[in-house]
């Protein structure tokens, strides 16, 4: 049993507004787990439930095989969290924030702190209110990493970081993974998920619609279809399996994840002059899930 995170049927609603419904996912030791979804899908609600900031209405949250409801403090000792909003107390210096965080964990993090600040090029003497978003994100990264946790929970970690620091950040994460850490990160950046994650889950409208290894997601059944010779999009194809329709000049393009024989059967009745079916790239696979369904 090397499950680091296990969410079983977790639901949370805010009055009438839907939060998340029946979210289940599993993150194993050593995974770099990508958590993706459109804005408002429930990513933050899921993450905040995992950290004890929100109490779910139903379901079970287990981290390090301990229930979050019962052993929150013990669990939080071993987690490094990076919130999407990197907000800190004004009137304080970076070093004050970092030392406060270390003291709250009862750990001497000086060595790691020095190392991380050097690699991320973070000036500890600066006051928080003078920092740009990118630099505040760096403070957030150091706070999450300096105590060398077993699990990293990162909410959109690279937004606001310049490309050099992004690379440095992922290098750091990979190093941590090598020595046994597990990483859970939410991201909108598809290439990030493709390049660094071992597994991913996609959440949409409060439900996890797909959870799989990156390898399997890339080998998904989504195909990029191009048809020539038609002026209008075939009405029979306007169902759940079709996404991202674009009509240019003589060519109709769309993403299709249904059965190929069904598609061919429908198109037989049309005077198509050309038909191309290609494997969709990772961006198209995810966009396929991101887009709202056609009516």
């Amino acid at each position, binding site marked *: 049993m090397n499950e680091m995170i296990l969410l079983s049927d977790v639901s949370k609603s805010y009055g009438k507004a839907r939060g998340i419904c029946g979210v289940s996912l599993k993150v194993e030791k050593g995974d770099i787990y990508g958590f993706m979804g459109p804005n408002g899908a429930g990513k933050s609600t899921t993450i905040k439930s995992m950290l004890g*900031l929100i*109490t779910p209405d139903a379901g079970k949250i287990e981290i390090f095989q301990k229930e979050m409801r019962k052993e929150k403090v*013990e669990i*939080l000792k071993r*987690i490094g*969290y990076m919130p999407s909003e990197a907000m800190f*107390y004004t009137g*304080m210096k970076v070093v004050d924030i970092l030392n406060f965080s270390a003291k709250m964990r009862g750990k001497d993090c000086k060595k790691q702190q020095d190392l991380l600040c050097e690699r991320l090029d973070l000036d500890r003497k600066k006051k928080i209110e003078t920092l740009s978003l990118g630099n505040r994100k760096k403070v957030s990264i150091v706070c999450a990493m300096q105590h060398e946790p077993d699990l990293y929970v990162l909410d959109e970690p690279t937004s606001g970081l310049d490309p050099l620091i992004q690379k440095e950040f992922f290098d750091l994460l990979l190093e941590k993974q090598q020595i046994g850490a597990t990483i859970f990160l939410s991201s909108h950046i598809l290439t990030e998920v493709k390049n660094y994650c071992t597994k991913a889950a996609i959440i949409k409208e409060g439900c996890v619609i797909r959870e799989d290894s990156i390898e399997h997601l890339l080998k998904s059944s989504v195909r990029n279809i191009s048809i020539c010779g038609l002026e209008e999009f075939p009405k029979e194809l306007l169902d759940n399996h079709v996404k991202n329709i674009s009509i240019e000049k003589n060519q109709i393009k769309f993403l299709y994840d249904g059965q190929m024989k069904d598609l061919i059967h429908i198109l037989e009745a049309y005077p198509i002059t050309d038909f191309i079916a290609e494997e969709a790239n990772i961006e198209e696979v995810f966009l396929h899930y991101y887009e709202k369904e056609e009516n």
Partner: protein
Amino acid sequence: MEVFLLEMKKNQKSLWIWTISIAIMVLSCMLLFPELKEQAKQVNAMYSSLGSLSQAFGMNKINMASSMGFFAIECGSILGIGGALFCGLLGSGMISKEEHMHTAEFLFTHPRTRGYILFHKFLALLSCIILFYGVNFAISVLSFFIISEDFNLKKLILVFLMQMLLGIEIAGIGFGVSAVLKTSGAGIGIGIGFVFYFMSIYANITNNSKWVKYLTPFSYADPVTVLTKKTIEEGYLFMGMLYLFCALAFSFWYYKKKDIL
């Protein structure tokens, strides 16, 4: 202790601005006394003949020509309302500012219970209040020496003790409200201070609504009351401490389960 030290650091600017401002006002007021003493008789006659106004501020009960009487009326008002506003503001922002300033996600994801964090925030709140009244007490004593006037130290200590309890009660009620809020709470904090102050004025003027005295901490903390009555107003004080206890208990209970969005 890290949370306590963090809160003390965060609030020190506000603490010293308020403390020094009130202290300067109290000192300046006391420095006027020697001049006013000359016209004592006329002042007393005038002040006690203002009908309801005299009653509202207790001017009909105490001798303004005495240094302690003057202190109770003039500085008592400054300290009373100034302390109430400062404590109301401090208390009502203590918890809510974390969500208002979006620092809650940083603070509450450390391995500490919410109760631990709230407890140390309250300790910091208490410390700020003690410092505020402590400094103002010292300045008040100093002012008596500067104007070379006699004063009753025991009574003065009692006045400040009651004022401090007023401050703690108001801050505690603000703390309880702060647990529910997601905004800065500044408006509510100031509102609490003013509402209690005007309740006391109202209770002083009317004869029919003496029950209002059980609602406001000014009933037991008003310097005129403390100086003119033989014993402290135990009934009002007990109610005040009861409200404080309920507000604090509520804040800990409510915040334990609150969703931090």
